C-alpha cells in the first residue's frame, strides 16, 4: 500500500509537509466526490489514488457513484461527445431519461458535504436536487471551448446552478456565470504507469510486445483516431527515416470516433510494408506496457490536431523524454517550447524537430532532464491533491 510519505522521494522538497499542514487546516470538513464510474479513464485512476491519500491525511472524504441503465450511460456518452463539439443524435426522450435517472440517484445517495465535487457531465444534473447547505462544484475534465450548441443550451442550465466550476485549462472554459477555477490533471509517479522500472523489466515487457531495442524508438501513445493524427506521425517518421535508422511505435486502442477502424486499417497497412513501423493495440489497463514503452523511447510524439489536456505528455516527460506535440488542447501548457520539447503544426514540423534532436543527442538528455523537473514541480499528483485541498479551504472558509 502506497503512503503519503512515499511521495517525499519524488515530490519537491517540503511538499508532503505542506500537505500535512494543509490537511490540518481543512480537517473536519466533508469533501464528497461524485462520478459515473470508479474505473476507466485517467481521471478516475488519479481520483482513486487521491481518495487514498485524503483518507491517510485523516480527511473526511467520500466518493459516490451514480447508478444508471444502458440508455442512461449511452446518453451521457453522447452528451459528453456533443459537449466536446461532436455531432451526436440526442433526442428529447434521451435527455429526459438522463435527468430522471440522475433524480433517482440523487434520492438514494448521501449528498450532504461541505464541498461536493461532481465530475464530468454524466452526474451533473444532480445539482437540480442538491440539498440545502454545502458548496457544489462541477469538475469538468473536458474541453468545452466549442460545444454543440443545442446540447450546450440544455446542459448549461445545470452547469450554471453550481457554485463554481473547475476546468483543466483556461482554453477549455465555456461562458458560464459562475466562478471558474483551473486545476491541471496530474501524473501519479508511483503508479504502474509511471513508477521506475529496471532495464530488465523494460526489456522483458518490450520482448513481450515484440518491440526490439536495436535502434532509436519514436513513440506515440494514444487512441487511434484522426484527432491524434497517427497517419501524420507515420508521414513524419518517413521523412526522418531517410536520414536516421529509427523505429516508430504507435501504441493505443481504437478510438471512439466512427473513423477509428479506417485509421487502424491505414496503420496496419503501413506496418505491413515497413517492419520498422510497429502498431500495437493495447488494452485500456496496459499500464506497465505504456510505462516500459515510454522509458524505452528516444523521443515521444503526441502529434494531435485536436486533444484534451493530454496528460500522457507529462507522463512521458516524467520519464525524461523530450516530447514533440501538436499545438492544441493542453499540450502547450505542458511542453515548454524549445525547453522540454517542441510544439508543431504539421507532420513536417514534427519531422524537422525529430531530426534536430537525433542530430543533437545531447539535447535529448538535456530536454528530458528539464522536462522531468517541470513535471515534478507542476504535474505530480501531490500538486493535484494540494489544489483540491486549497479548493476545499477556499470555498468552505469558515468566517473568522
Amino acid at each position, binding site marked *: 500500500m502506497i503512503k503519503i510519505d512515499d511521495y517525499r522521494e519524488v515530490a519537491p522538497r517540503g511538499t508532503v509537509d505542506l500537505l500535512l499542514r494543509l490537511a490540518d487546516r481543512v480537517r473536519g470538513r466533508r469533501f464528497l466526490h461524485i462520478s459515473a464510474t470508479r474505473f476507466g479513464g485517467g481521471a478516475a485512476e488519479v481520483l482513486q489514488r487521491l481518495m487514498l491519500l485524503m483518507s491517510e491525511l485523516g480527511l473526511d472524504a467520500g466518493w459516490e457513484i451514480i447508478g444508471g441503465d444502458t440508455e442512461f450511460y449511452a446518453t451521457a456518452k453522447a452528451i459528453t461527445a456533443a459537449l466536446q463539439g461532436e455531432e451526436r443524435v440526442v433526442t428529447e426522450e434521451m435527455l429526459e431519461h438522463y435527468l430522471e435517472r440522475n433524480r433517482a440517484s440523487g434520492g438514494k445517495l448521501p449528498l450532504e458535504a461541505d464541498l461536493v465535487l461532481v465530475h464530468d457531465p454524466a452526474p451533473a444534473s444532480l445539482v437540480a436536487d442538491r440539498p440545502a447547505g454545502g458548496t457544489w462544484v462541477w469538475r469538468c475534465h473536458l474541453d468545452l471551448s466549442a460545444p454543440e450548441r443545442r446540447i450546450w443550451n440544455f446542459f448549461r442550465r445545470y452547469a450554471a446552478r453550481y457554485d463554481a466550476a473547475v476546468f483543466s485549462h483556461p482554453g477549455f472554459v465555456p461562458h458560464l456565470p459562475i466562478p471558474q477555477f483551473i486545476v491541471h490533471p496530474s501524473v501519479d509517479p508511483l503508479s504502474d504507469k509511471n513508477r521506475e522500472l529496471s532495464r530488465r523489466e523494460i526489456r522483458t515487457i518490450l520482448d513481450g510486445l515484440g518491440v526490439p531495442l536495436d535502434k532509436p524508438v519514436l513513440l506515440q501513445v494514444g487512441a487511434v483516431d484522426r484527432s491524434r493524427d497517427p497517419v501524420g506521425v507515420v508521414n513524419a517518421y518517413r521523412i526522418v527515416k531517410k536520414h536516421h535508422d529509427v523505429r516508430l511505435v504507435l501504441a493505443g486502442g481504437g478510438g471512439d470516433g466512427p473513423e477509428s477502424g479506417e485509421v487502424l486499417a491505414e496503420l496496419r497497412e503501413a506496418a505491413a510494408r515497413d517492419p520498422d513501423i510497429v502498431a500495437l493495440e493495447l488494452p485500456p489497463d496496459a499500464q506497465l506496457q505504456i510505462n516500459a514503452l515510454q522509458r524505452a523511447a528516444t523521443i515521444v510524439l503526441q502529434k494531435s490536431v485536436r486533444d484534451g489536456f493530454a496528460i500522457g505528455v507529462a507522463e512521458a516527460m516524467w520519464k525524461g523524454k523530450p516530447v514533440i506535440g501538436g499545438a492544441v488542447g493542453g499540450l502547450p501548457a505542458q511542453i515548454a517550447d524549445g525547453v522540454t520539447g517542441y510544439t508543431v503544426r504539421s507532420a513536417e514540423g514534427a519531422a524537422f524537430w525529430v531530426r534536430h534532436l537525433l542530430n543533437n543527442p545531447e539535447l535529448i538528455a538535456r530536454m528530458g532532464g528539464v522536462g522531468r523537473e517541470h513535471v515534478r514541480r507542476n504535474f505530480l499528483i501531490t500538486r493535484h491533491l494540494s489544489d483540491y485541498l*486549497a479548493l476545499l479551504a477556499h470555498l468552505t472558509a469558515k468566517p473568522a
Partner: protein
Amino acid sequence: MAAAPPFRFMGCIELLENLGVRAQDERELVEFLRQVPVGSVFHHTCGYFLRHRIFVGPYANDFATWTAVHLGDRVLGERLAVVDPFDFADLEQLREELISIVSDHLGRLRAPPRVDGGEPFHFIQSHVVEIPTGLEARTLAEFRDRLAEVEASAIYYHTVLARARLGRGAGDFAGWLRGSLGREDLAAAVERADPYLSSLERVRSRLLDLLDAALDAGAAAEGRAPAAPA
C-alpha cells in the same frame, strides 16, 4: 522587556481562477488590463515565481511572454519583460505602467498583430491559501536553519507576496530582522536581494549567503569559530 516575537514561516498555495476574459490582440490586452481585478495583474507578473520554479518561458511575466511568443511581437515583449514588479509602490501603479507601455506601443503600430495559430491570453487571478508551516525562529541562527529547510512557497510568501500583494513593502524577512532583531544592516541587504529574474531557490541561496556571512562575522567578533550549518 518582552522577548521579540518569533518569525513564523508561512507557506502557501495559489488557487487559480479563470476570469473568463481572453485577449486576441494587443488592443484587447490593454482593454482587459484596465478592467481585471488587480489580483490578476499580480498573478501574471509576480505569480510567475511560484508557478515556474524553473525558467520555462522567454520572459518572467506572462504579458511579455504572450506578446513575444503568441503574437510574435518581440519588441513589445522586450518592453514588458523589463518591467520589474518590485519597482512599484503597489499593484495599481504596476498596472498603470503596463497599460502605458502597451498603449504607447500600439500608437506606433499600423496594424497590431493578432493571435494566429497561437493561444489567446487568458486572464487569471489567484487566491492565496495560507498554510502555517509550523517552523519558527527566535534567533538569527535558527532563522538561517529554518530558511534552509522550509518549502519554497514560504520564500514566495515572505518575499514576493508580502511585498507586492500584502503591502509589507520591505518583505517579511527584512521586516523581522529589522524589527525583532534590530539588524538594520542585514535587513537592508535582505531587502535588496532582487527576486526578479531569478527563482525561489536562487533567492533562498542568496539569503542564506547573507545570513551565513552575518553569523560568521558575529562569531569572529566574539572570538568564536564560525558555526557549521545545521
